[in-house]
């Protein structure tokens, strides 16, 4: 047939071009698929919280992949390292790509410092869904909460994310709020750093030994540093290094150098008792320098 070309074959899926992300499917196709997801999960669980957990896990997988895809395509392989940055990434970029519009609002919680809320009048996934009365507080937005959790977790900001209906006066349908509660290791200030920033020594090692690799790709090698701020992590590793050196010096001194302080004129009986005072001074000096 003229005009019907063969689809190009790629030996490796990684060689296939990523595409611009402009392809679309009809909303009803997605709605049908999502309804099957929910219906299948309903057969696998006994209660509502398990159902929400399963939907969230499905969304988590989507979120992890969305983060990788968008970091590469939209942000040129630069990742967000600050709390506010990642929240606005979720609120605008992720929402725009997945749902076609930015989220309605992003707010900081007033009662707790580590809570943030993304609000939406009507989530896309809920468009054709009605919750029966006996399912109480069940929210299919748990899928979207899972997507957000996947993005945040893989960006280094672990959090617990849930979806809630918030009734609004004057409107029949309640608003949806995605509540993000960050874990303790993430700081509460909007400038908190991601928890997977590599330390300076490790960056140096990577650069010298392996060549200058793409920062984003390198971080996915999962070097993680548990300190909340990258700068503290740098100081900590240097500190450890210095303390190791000082311990080595003390051991070296007490075995080799201390012989020099033995009083030669006194004789052999005194060799077994090296002067303790110089050793102490030396060790204290090293300790003081490292601190």
């Amino acid at each position, binding site marked *: *047939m003229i005009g*019907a070309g*063969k*689809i190009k*074959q790629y030996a490796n*899926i990684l060689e296939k071009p990523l*595409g611009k*992300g402009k*392809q*679309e*499917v*009809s*909303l*009803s*196709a*997605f709605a*049908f*698929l*999502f*309804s*099957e*997801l929910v*219906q*299948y*999960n309903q057969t*696998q669980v006994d209660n509502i919280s398990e159902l929400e957990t*399963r939907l969230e*896990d*499905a*969304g988590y*997988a*989507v979120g992890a*992949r*969305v983060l990788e*895809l968008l970091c590469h395509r939209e942000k040129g392989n630069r990742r967000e390292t600050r709390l506010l940055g990642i929240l606005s990434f979720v609120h605008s970029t992720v929402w725009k*790509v*997945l*749902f*076609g519009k930015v989220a309605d609002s992003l707010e900081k919680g007033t009662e707790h410092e580590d809570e943030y809320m993304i609000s939406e009048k009507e989530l*896309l996934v809920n468009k054709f869904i009605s919750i029966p009365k006996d399912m109480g507080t069940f929210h299919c937005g748990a899928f979207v909460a899972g997507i957000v959790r996947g993005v945040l977790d893989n960006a280094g900001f672990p959090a617990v994310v849930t979806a809630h209906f918030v009734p609004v006066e004057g409107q029949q349908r309640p608003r949806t709020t995605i509540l993000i509660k960050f874990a303790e290791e993430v700081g509460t200030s909007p400038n908190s750093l991601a928890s997977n920033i590599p330390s300076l020594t490790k960056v140096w090692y990577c650069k010298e030994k392996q060549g200058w690799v793409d920062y984003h790709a390198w971080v996915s090698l999962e070097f993680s540093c548990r300190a909340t701020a990258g700068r503290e992590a740098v100081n900590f590793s240097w500190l450890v290094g210095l303390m190791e050196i000082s311990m080595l010096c003390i051991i070296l001194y007490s075995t080799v150098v201390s012989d020099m302080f033995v009083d030669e004129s006194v004789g052999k009986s005194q060799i077994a008792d090296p002067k303790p005072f110089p050793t102490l001074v030396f060790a204290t000096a090293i300790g003081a320098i490292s601190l």
Partner: protein
Amino acid sequence: MPPAAPRSGEAIFASVERVNAELFTLTYGAIVRQLLTDLEEVDEVNKQLDQMGYNIGIRLIDEFLAKSNVSRCVDFKETAEMIAKVGFKMFLGVTASVMNWDADGTCCSILLEDNPLVDFVELPDTCQGLYYCNILSGVIRGALEMVAMKTEVTWIRDMLRGDDAYELQVKLLKQVPEEYPYKDDE
């Protein structure tokens, strides 16, 4: 009032609300992953995907008939053309073509040029028997059953398994005449 003319797939696709295909792709991937974790057997997953597709198909046909304004198809050949040209276009935004008709006119192949379900997908060695897009075969089977045709839909070629295209075989088993829910003499 004369019935409205049937609309082309492109026109309908332009008029419906659309979502990003990547959300669709990733959601489908999450479904397949959940099934693989729960069921573990590849054959079971294939069957479950087909069943899910069937559930979608029996409801999808209503929307298809409502939006596309097609009149009753004269024969199976026209049905297959409708599926390929209008159905795939209006739901998935991809064009498909029909070929390889057999002598009776009851069996044909639908060739998909583009498949939004399989972006970013590679089958691992442990899942080589998996028909990743089996949901599509269920959708077609379910939709046709609701319009009085019993069919069998199988995958002939699947790019994830190393072939060069996506080809579905649709075989008409029999036409089931519509039964009325009440008998005349009661």
